[in-house]
Structure formats: structure tokens, C-alpha cells
């Protein structure tokens, strides 16, 4: 191949690479590789099931589904549930997801001096009270669901009923 021919091939190669890269740059930002969690559809199904359980128990609850990092996937506050129950449901769910245990089992941690800084550094209040349960998939912790608005045992019962969708 002559030098001119080699130069042309090289130039074509560079141009092709630039065009390829340019079209790549115009694409949408990539989807995040997020921590494992229930799908949005599963979360909605669980919330719906919890709502039915709550209605059957004669109570109005807020319920929240979070992923394994404790980030919210979906939340629903039933008509009549007090406004702060959303925070408590989220906080119990996050508590359960972070430790992979029922939030009601975390009371001792709640009383420990470590809890305060833990609570402050993680965005959103944590509530180490009964009413949230972890969500497992094939033996792996993928998140949690918490409810608030009634007696804590009632909250937990609504969650337990709802988790049968998983």
C-alpha cells in the first residue's frame, strides 16, 4: 500500500471513530446500576394488598416499599391516615432494609448511643419500631416494606399480609 493510500485508510478510520463516538454522546444517560430492590409493579401490588388488609382491619395506614439501600420505591397514604405516618412508614422500612430484620427487633439499637449519628447521617429519619419487615428474593435481601397508622402490631400484620405478593 502506498503512503497516500495508508493515509486515506487512517483518515477514514479516524473519521469513523469520531462519528461513532459522536452518535454515542447523543444517547440518553445510562440507566443506573442501582442496588437490588422490588420492581415498581411489585411495590404497587404490595401497597394495594396492604391497603386491603388495612381496610379489613378497619384502619387507615401509610405504607412504604424501599429497596435494599432503603431508598423509596413506592409509597401510599390511605385517606384518613395522619400526615406523619408517611415518615414513620418510610423510616421503619428503611430500618428493616438496612439491617435485614423486622424493624421491631431494632429497639436496642435505637437506644444505643450510635443510633443518633446513624440517624443523622442517613437522609430521612429512621424509626426502630415494629411495623416493617424485610423483603427477600431467593434468599437475598432486596428491600423492605413498612406501614404506620395503627397499633404497631397491626402495622406489622398489614405488612406481613402484603408481602405474600413476593
Amino acid at each position, binding site marked *: 500500500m502506498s503512503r497516500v493510500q495508508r493515509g486515506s485508510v487512517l483518515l477514514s478510520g479516524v473519521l469513523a471513530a469520531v462519528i461513532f463516538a459522536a452518535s454515542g454522546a447523543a444517547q*440518553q444517560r445510562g*440507566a*443506573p446500576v*442501582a*442496588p437490588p430492590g422490588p*420492581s*415498581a409493579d411489585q*411495590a*404497587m401490588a404490595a401497597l394495594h394488598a396492604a*391497603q386491603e388488609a388495612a381496610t379489613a382491619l378497619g384502619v*387507615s395506614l401509610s405504607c412504604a416499599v424501599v*429497596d435494599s*439501600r432503603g*431508598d*423509596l*420505591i*413506592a*409509597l*401510599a*397514604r*390511605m*385517606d*384518613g*391516615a*395522619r*400526615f406523619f405516618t*408517611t415518615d414513620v412508614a418510610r423510616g421503619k422500612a428503611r430500618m428493616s432494609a438496612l439491617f435485614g430484620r423486622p424493624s421491631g427487633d431494632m429497639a436496642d439499637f435505637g437506644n444505643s448511643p450510635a443510633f443518633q449519628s446513624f440517624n443523622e447521617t442517613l*437522609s*430521612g429519619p429512621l424509626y426502630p419500631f415494629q411495623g416493617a419487615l424485610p423483603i427477600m428474593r431467593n434468599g437475598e435481601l432486596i428491600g423492605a416494606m413498612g406501614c404506620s397508622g395503627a397499633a404497631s402490631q397491626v402495622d406489622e400484620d398489614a405488612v406481613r399480609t402484603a408481602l405474600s405478593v413476593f
Partner: protein
Amino acid sequence: MNQITRISRAIVAIMLVAGCVTASAGAPAELTAQTGPQRLTLSEAQAIIAAAQRDAASKNLRLSIAVVDGRGDLIAATRMPDARPTTMDTAIGKAMGAAIFGRPSAELAERANSSLYQNMNEATGGRLRFFQGAVPIVRDGYTVGAVGASGASSQDDEDNVKAALAQWASAVGL
């Protein structure tokens, strides 16, 4: 009956009536989630979010969408598949601002650094987000809540919630 007896009986009657009124006023009020006309229900909030999800999916957007009530308190929120996790709190924060101030959150963005807005944000525990992407939900002239989205450009977010509201409003005949 003499004058004095008539007056004393009148006084006793008035006191009895006053006592009854006070007694009934003292009865504990039922705890209600919200007062005011036509408060937004969970069912309505979820319908608005579903409309937003359909609109977002049609444009290949991955959003979180949140609906708050007239006080700015959260009613419902959903993070669409593959939406960035932090978009949830942003959507909620935009919606809260829109509901509290009764304005599209885009209008709040200009004054975000004012002391009024900073104080209000402190009062909510720092949850407000003064960015475009949320609009109030108005019914019968009342702000009954707001809907906010996050996950795309702020204009896309705002277009999404406006489309969702328009679709919901026409579906329910508003």
C-alpha cells in the same frame, strides 16, 4: 310573678343554655386528615401518577413522580423502573414547594435564595426543592395538592406532570 322572679328565671335559663353549648363544644373533635373542600384522595393521587407514568414511558423517560396534599404532605409516590434513586426525594420536594406556595415550582426557583424560602425549607426539615418540575393541583379554585416529577431535564419533568394532570382532569371531568 314579680319582676325579680322573672329576671332570675331568665338568668337561670340563659345559664342552662350556655352550659349546654359549652358542654357540646367541649366534646373532642374527630381527628381528620385534612379539612377544606374536595380534598385529594389516595385514589386520585394514584390515578395522576399512573397518567404521569404512561406519559413518561411514551417518551422513554425514567422518572419518579410524587403527589402531595394541600398542606404539602405526601400522599403517594412511585419510582419508575431504572429511574435514578435520588429522583424520589427531588420529586417530593418539588411537589411540596408547589403545594405550599400554590405555584409551579419553576416560579420558586428564581427566589430560592430568599430568606422566606430558606426559612420555609428549614421548617420542612430541608425537604423542599426549588426546581422546575411540579405544578399545583387546583379544584374549585382551591389548591388541593401538587404533583412533581424528577429524572429527566426539568422542562421534561414539568411537561410530564402537566400532561398527567391534563389527562386526569379530562378523565374525571374537571
